[in-house]
């Protein structure tokens, strides 16, 4: 395979369901070893995008290429061996044990059965593997689903809400696994609306809203695009802030709050650090959650703004 080739390539892709547009003009390129976060509210077009990449549905317009081929063509079926997928809310076969479920999927994928035991071990189900899936908790089903997605060392992994139902430790484990896979050259698409903790592990984020691409880029890119301030919280007695900072300060229950543009962050730190009486200083950079909220709201705000202008005109 050509190293420079894009693993996933979407060009001006649109998808309509019975006249309702689920995805509008989406273009996307993913290289080997990239981890992409796909974010958006319910019905934003995340699952549609994933289904298009999997070849489960065809695009209404535009071009989808996965490993350089059209995934909806039957010749592309063998490409699916290089693909791992975990969807939201999969409940598997209650009558079978975890190991039997995994072995069934392994056989369908043409993966040796012996890899199943080690996969179950990796997701922490080695004990539960002998029990029926019926007895599993939601988190255990999710981990079984993950083991299923990892069968046969996939080159492209699509995970829809992978951490739903996982406890914090298991979530950490999961992200660490993604990190290892990335180092092995696996391309990962993470689809989620649960955001805390995910930003460290993704190279790029794509924020969708009502089928539109709202923002795309690394977390740093997004911070610059959004131009959200860094928030300082200062605690101490008799703080005398320099004039230009005092104008931006306000009081809240955590002490003095200060919103500073990202570009001025370092100079602000230098000025604050020597301030007499300062006991504590917390700096909060805009998190992915803040950025997500910002892009969704500003998109919605546009709509609301237009409506208000229209009403005013009437």
């Amino acid at each position, binding site marked *: 395979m050509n190293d420079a080739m894009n693993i996933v390539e979407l060009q001006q892709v649109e998808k309509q369901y019975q006249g309702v547009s689920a995805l509008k003009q989406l273009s996307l390129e993913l290289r080997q070893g990239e981890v992409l976060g796909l974010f958006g509210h319910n019905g934003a077009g995340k699952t549609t995008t994933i289904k298009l990449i999997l070849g*489960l*549905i065809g695009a209404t317009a535009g071009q989808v290429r996965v490993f350089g081929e059209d995934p909806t063509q039957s010749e592309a079926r063998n490409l699916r061996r290089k*693909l791992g*997928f975990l969807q939201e*809310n999969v409940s*598997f076969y209650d*009558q079978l044990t975890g190991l039997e479920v995994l072995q069934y999927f392994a056989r369908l*994928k043409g993966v040796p059965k012996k890899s199943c035991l080690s996969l179950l071990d990796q997701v922490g189900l080695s004990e539960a593997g002998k029990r029926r899936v019926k007895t599993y908790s939601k988190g255990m089903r999710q981990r079984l689903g993950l083991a*299923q997605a990892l069968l046969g060392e996939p080159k492209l992994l699509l995970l829809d809400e992978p951490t739903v139902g996982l406890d914090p430790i298991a979530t950490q484990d999961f992200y660490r696994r993604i990190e290892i896979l990335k180092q092995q050259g696996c391309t990962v698409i993470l689809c989620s609306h649960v955001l805390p903790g995910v930003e460290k592990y993704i190279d790029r984020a794509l924020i969708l809203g009502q089928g539109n691409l709202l923002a795309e880029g690394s977390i740093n890119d997004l911070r610059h695009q959004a131009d959200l301030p860094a928030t300082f919280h200062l605690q101490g007695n008799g703080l005398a802030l320099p004039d230009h900072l005092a104008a931006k300060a306000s009081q809240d229950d955590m002490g003095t709050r200060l919103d500073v543009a990202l570009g001025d962050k370092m100079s602000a730190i230098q000025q604050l650090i020597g301030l007499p009486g300062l006991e504590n200083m917390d700096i909060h950079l805009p998190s992915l959650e803040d950025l997500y909220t910002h892009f969704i709201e500003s998109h919605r705000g546009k709509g609301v703004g237009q409506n208000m202008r229209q009403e005013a005109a009437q």
Partner: protein
Amino acid sequence: MNAILTVANKEFHDGLRNRWVLSICIIFSVLAIGLAYFGAAAAGKVGFTSLSSTIVSLASLAVFIIPLIALMLAYDGVVGEDENGTLLLLMTYPLSRWQLLLGKMVGQGAVMAFSTLIGFGSSAVMMGIFSGTTSWGELIGPYAVFIFSAVLLGWIFIAISYVISASVSEKSKAAGIALITWFIFVLVFDLGMLGMLVGTQGNVDETLFPYLLLLNPTDIFRLVNITYFADQNLTGLMAIAQQTQFSTLSLLGGLLVWLTLPVTLALAIFNRRGL
């Protein structure tokens, strides 16, 4: 081919695991042994009596119960996987739609065939051992035809279940339609035919009428087992059909045609199903 066998193998194990195989075996063997032993109770006798009356009464009971079991076994074959989310997942595997559907039908067909063979076969064995009047040689032919046609009947209704299951989007709807399907094939069709006879005061084309029975696989199944024992005193629809002699082989052929129709239809519908 490998994928079909993998799916079929899993379906068969499902059948063993959720006790379908066991329950069908028990139902069939109790039915068959009971009829064989108590079949002549009305005439004031118990014990193994005539082979022909045993098989004919077995066939007329099996014609109700086999379609019902097959429909219950397979009605959620597609729609159940869809509701579980596993259908979507399976479609991302190197597996085509027809392989999945055929695999599932083969697996559940094996459940049906295996249980029918064990269930009804056990009664043949009991009869062979305990009956003073019927020899092993006499038993094997009729029971082979009966079991073979019963398996075909089961397969036809499994395939019909898949037509239903692939067409609907909810499990409960599939269950409802399956029940109606059973009702139509097993009860309404024959009632309609009888009604037609009575309504026209028997003035129906005698050559045409038996062919109308070929429109219903359950009637073909009964004809297969009745034509094998032409000496039976028959009543109702079957007596009329007896006048036209279909050979056992051509009737079994009719069942095979009936099997390919719903299989093809199910594949066509499933191919167009959205995900």
